[in-house]
């Protein structure tokens, strides 16, 4: 961990976290933020479900990176394409007809010898970083369940494969991935029981099972604090039947939904505060925690991604 290093000064960021916490949104926002600050940035979607296209409103992404905003390129991972590229560039194997069966058998081998698919994914990303095609590569990585396998793949392969080109390849990948000045993981969590628990577990596993350094934890969807000092008491008095009645006659309309709504908002915020405290106390002390507010918006697209980028920028002191 190297907390003194600015998050975006690294060259490779893996954004991960439990399903649905906002990995894609945060990855896109970080990439947008970096691009806005002048860095040539590549955003890589691993799961190829088109989520990046939604948050950036960019149209579909493919294996070949496409510039979707000034200085921001986006691509989606495809292991078969990655293998093709690898064979061509690294081994100077020309595009053969035989690549068909090779790719198909790869599919089978990958099911039984996992690590092969992962290494093609991580390998392609690491290669982009090594070749310095971009200043920063941000990866919308897999959820907690799969990401350790992915990040540990070079090491696993390194253990399994004793000789051959792949072993040589994994060596430089490992160097790059384990350098805290170059690579970092960003774990996204929402302040809820399971995402927090998974985050704490993931932080441990990343430490034990991979050599990829942890860069930051993003606490996403933080609900707003409604009341300042003394105001909660005012609100509590407002909640009494007599005051509700009085308010209803002043505004001449139904006030219960509005008061109950505020009450629910307060309780939701409180139940989440507990989980934020747990994160703060149980994570390594020097690990940066970045807070991103819950955005109450109708639709999630480029506008929301910009708001998230702004919020992250503020947290990073930009």
């Amino acid at each position: 961990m190297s907390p003194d290093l600015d998050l975006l000064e690294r060259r490779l960021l893996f954004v991960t976290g439990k399903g649905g916490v906002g990995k894609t949104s945060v990855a896109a926002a970080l990439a947008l933020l970096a691009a806005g600050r002048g860095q040539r940035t590549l955003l890589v979607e691993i799961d190829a479900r088109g989520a990046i296209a939604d948050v950036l409103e960019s149209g579909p992404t493919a294996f070949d990176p496409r510039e979707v905003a000034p200085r921001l390129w986006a691509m989606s991972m495809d292991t078969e394409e990655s293998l093709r590229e690898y064979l061509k560039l690294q081994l100077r194997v020309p595009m053969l007809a035989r690549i068909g069966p090779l790719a198909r058998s790869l599919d089978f081998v990958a099911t039984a010898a996992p690590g092969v698919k992962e290494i093609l994914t991580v390998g392609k990303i690491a290669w982009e970083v090594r070749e310095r095609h971009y200043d920063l590569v941000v990866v919308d990585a897999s959820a907690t369940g799969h990401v350790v396998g992915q990040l540990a793949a070079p090491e696993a392969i390194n253990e399994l494969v004793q000789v051959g080109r792949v072993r040589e390849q994994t060596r430089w990948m490992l160097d790059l991935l384990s350098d805290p000045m170059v690579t970092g993981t960003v774990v996204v969590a929402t302040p809820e029981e399971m995402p927090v628990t998974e985050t704490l577990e993931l932080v441990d596993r990343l430490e034990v099972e991979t050599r990829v350094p942890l860069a930051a934890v993003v606490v996403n969807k933080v609900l707003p604090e409604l009341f300042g000092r003394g105001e909660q008491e005012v609100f509590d008095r407002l909640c009494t039947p007599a005051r509700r009645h009085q308010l209803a006659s002043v505004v001449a309309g139904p006030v219960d939904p509005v008061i109950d709504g505020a009450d629910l908002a307060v309780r939701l915020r409180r139940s989440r505060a507990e989980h934020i405290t747990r994160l703060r106390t149980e994570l390594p002390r020097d690990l940066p925690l970045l807070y991103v507010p819950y955005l109450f918006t109708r639709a999630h697209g480029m506008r929301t991604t910009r708001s998230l980028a702004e919020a992250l920028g503020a947290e990073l002191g930009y």
Partner: protein
Amino acid sequence: MSAGGLEQLCAAREIVVTCGSGGVGKTTTAAALGAMAASQLGGKVLVLTVDPARRLATALGLERFGNVETQVPPALFAEAGVEARGELWAAMLDTKQSWDDLVRAHAPDAATRDAILANPLYRNITAKFVQSHDYIAMERLHEIHRSGRYDLIVVDTPPTRNAIDFLEAPERMADFFSSRLLRWLITPYRSRLVNAASKPFYTMADRILGSQFLADIAEFFVLFQTMYDGFVERAQAVSRTIADRRTSFVVVSTLEDAPVREAEFFMQALVDRELHLGALVLNKVLPAWFADPAAAEVAGRLVRDADEVAGALTHVPLPVAGEAASGASGHLEPLGERAQVGRVLREIGQSFDDYRIVATREREQAAVLARHPELVVSVPHLDHDVCDLPGLVDLGRALW
């Protein structure tokens, strides 16, 4: 569907599978259904779960037991103020343990068994990678169901990248083991006779991966081939269990874009495969009154005219001397200073507006899913995590 709920479904089926995108509440729903079925319907109910929240696991007495089926102490129901007519059991899925058991059951002899368990590739599959999770969940389910020990098994599914993955897992496993490609791949290792057709592949694979790795792969497959018949048969039996009329699926979703899209996709996939879709659970739904237009008016007024309204509220005629002491009706405890009251009013108006936007979006999402209205059950967004039996029963009532 408030009247029907999931009671009927749980009474009529032997296996109920909860599925949906990551984090939507599959595990919680499965546990809540199990708790309701055990307490209301009676009989022996098993919740087969994957990574439950730690507090939930502890609450169910699961932490120490892992793969082993364990009964939730009946005393917990009593403490929760519920009279349990039946038994609730729970088990957590331990992928590695389950794979080992599977190998032990299918290996033709002790030597093969040990060789497989010791093969580096096998160790990697089970220890480091999770692709095998889907299959093993289905496999374990099949095994338990076949044992006939339970009246109802509620199955929680792992957060897969693609919810469809685990439906296809048994098929994929069977295809894999019966594929000609696989046999072709291991032939040279067996005969040491590389024929002209596959030679280029091996030369290239050798250069990339090294021959030791290839040998490990080949050894692994050769060993696994010995379990071929057992495996394929088993995978087919698992597929049959899933398709059986006694099995039903409950799709869980929150009302956010991605989970809704996934839920739609998944429901379609169930239909395409002629599997039984039992219900669609909309979880963490905001209260309907957030969409009340008259309330939105009030909220708007509070934001616009907060100070004026605050003035009206705080401007209460001072109680006549003696009236306060006697506690006469009409007296209200002072609300607070006018400016402060104004801030509170503006804030609650604003907050209502914020949540109304989300609630409106949720209603639109719900409308998208309304094509199957007879199947929809809504569960409110609770203001606390569901991590003990009373919490589960609470949530369960909304499902029932």
